[in-house]
């Protein structure tokens, strides 16, 4: 049955970390080329990592956080970000708000406002109610 794709076992965690490191390098180069939205898309792809391993989740969060913080023009971002990314982005915004870090929260709230306008309250519900695919 569709839905669960099965969680990767712990010995695969290394492979996931390697993939996240590769993603991180790609994001850095995209940011150097002033393509913050492309960087965010890259960061959100393959997220959340399909594992319960906390190391993988926090490694991925660091990468997504880097991309979120690089967004300057929020309205411009939404003109080129496809709706398929909305649900996962919302999850990471709540992760950002849970850190309590001032600049992170400011940035996440700014995007949150626009994202709610775009994707509706359903998007918030989807990110809060999913206890399986946590970020």
């Amino acid at each position, binding site marked *: *049955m*569709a*839905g*669960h794709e099965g969680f990767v076992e712990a010995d695969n965690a290394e492979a996931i970390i390697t993939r996240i490191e590769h993603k991180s390098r790609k994001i850095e180069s995209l940011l150097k080329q002033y393509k913050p939205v492309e960087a965010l898309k890259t960061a959100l792809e393959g997220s959340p990592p399909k594992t319960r391993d906390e190391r993988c989740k926090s490694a991925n969060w660091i990468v997504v956080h880097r991309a979120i913080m690089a967004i300057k023009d929020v309205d411009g971002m939404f003109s080129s970000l496809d709706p398929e990314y909305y*649900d996962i982005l919302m999850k990471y915004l709540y992760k950002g708000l849970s850190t309590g870090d001032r600049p992170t929260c400011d940035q996440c709230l700014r995007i949150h*406002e626009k994202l*709610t*306008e775009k*994707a*509706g*309250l*359903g*998007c918030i*519900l*989807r990110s809060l*109610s*999913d*206890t*399986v*695919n946590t970020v």
Partner: protein
Amino acid sequence: MAAIAVHQFAQCITCHAWSPDHSMIAFCPNNSEVHIHKLVEEKWERIHVLQKHDQIVSGIDWSIRSNRIVTVSHDRNSYVWNQEGVDWVPTLVILRLNRAALCVQWSPRENKFAVGSGAKTVCICYYEQENNWWVSKLIRKRHDSSVTSVAWHPNNILLATTSTDGKCRVFSTFIKGVDTRDSGTGSAGDSKFGEQIIQLDLSFCWSFGVKWSPSGNTLAYVGHNSMIYFVDEVGPAPSAQTVAFRDLPLRDVLFVSERMVIGVGFDCNPMVFAAEERGLWTFLRFLGERKASSSSAKYGSQFSEAFGKLYGQSKQGINNDRAETSIPRGAIHENCINSIVPLKKGGKSTNTRFSTSGLDGKVVIWDLENQEDLSEYL
């Protein structure tokens, strides 16, 4: 207007059901009683109060052919009420539950009823002629959490359930001596009582409100994550569709035809979902009138409105300075809608009329007859 009648029967209604000819309505006004109202000279008058339960009545169903009412309650019991003369006479059905009963539904042939419970079980109850007694048979060990909704397949054998463990399951409820293995039941007739036909793992959070389409070919249920799921070919190789929508989650669904589903829930306004020719389901529109939503200020007011709802204020939030937008967006219900019941005219496969009730204590009757844009899906 799609809504043709609005009745304020109580402060809050947990569930409701109609008599076979729709001249009477039974509902629970959020306490241990069931009130029956009858339409007398254009006015609804209370004619009976069924008092037997000790706690909130969570489910009512009124059988069409045998004219029996079944009620279930948080007190873990169920009663079947028979009309004798002017009175309704209750028969206790011992469900053997150790948690609240949450929902109830008569089977299509009305010889069984199913009760979902907080004890992670489903009770299938049937009448034993020799003992003059309703017997409850339990489906155990399959659900990992409370059963929130039950729905009978038209073949009288298959039962779909949703649960707060997020799953939707389909069981066989074949009972020897009650059901016969005739041709009408198809392959479903070969399974034993309590056998699980399928488990659907589409939702990652609570699931509510399951229904079969009139033919029994499609199954629809909702998740608390603002998603609705449609499953075709329920069996070894099901095909599933997931529709995410932008508003608050649904609590219950109803098939109006094979290709149209009405969903009701926390958004206070029924939503219409329809399948186009290729069978692809999409959200079509809201059924009640609704002001256009675009400005960001509206979302601010929606948040405080949601807080207002959270604290049981159905009119408007106190901390809301934009009162004009806080009245639930032109909708007829002012609070969460928790049940939707078809108003079926005998013999027709599609029914355009149905009623909804919710935490605002209103019962609203809707008719899709004059909704031109929806007629192609009927």
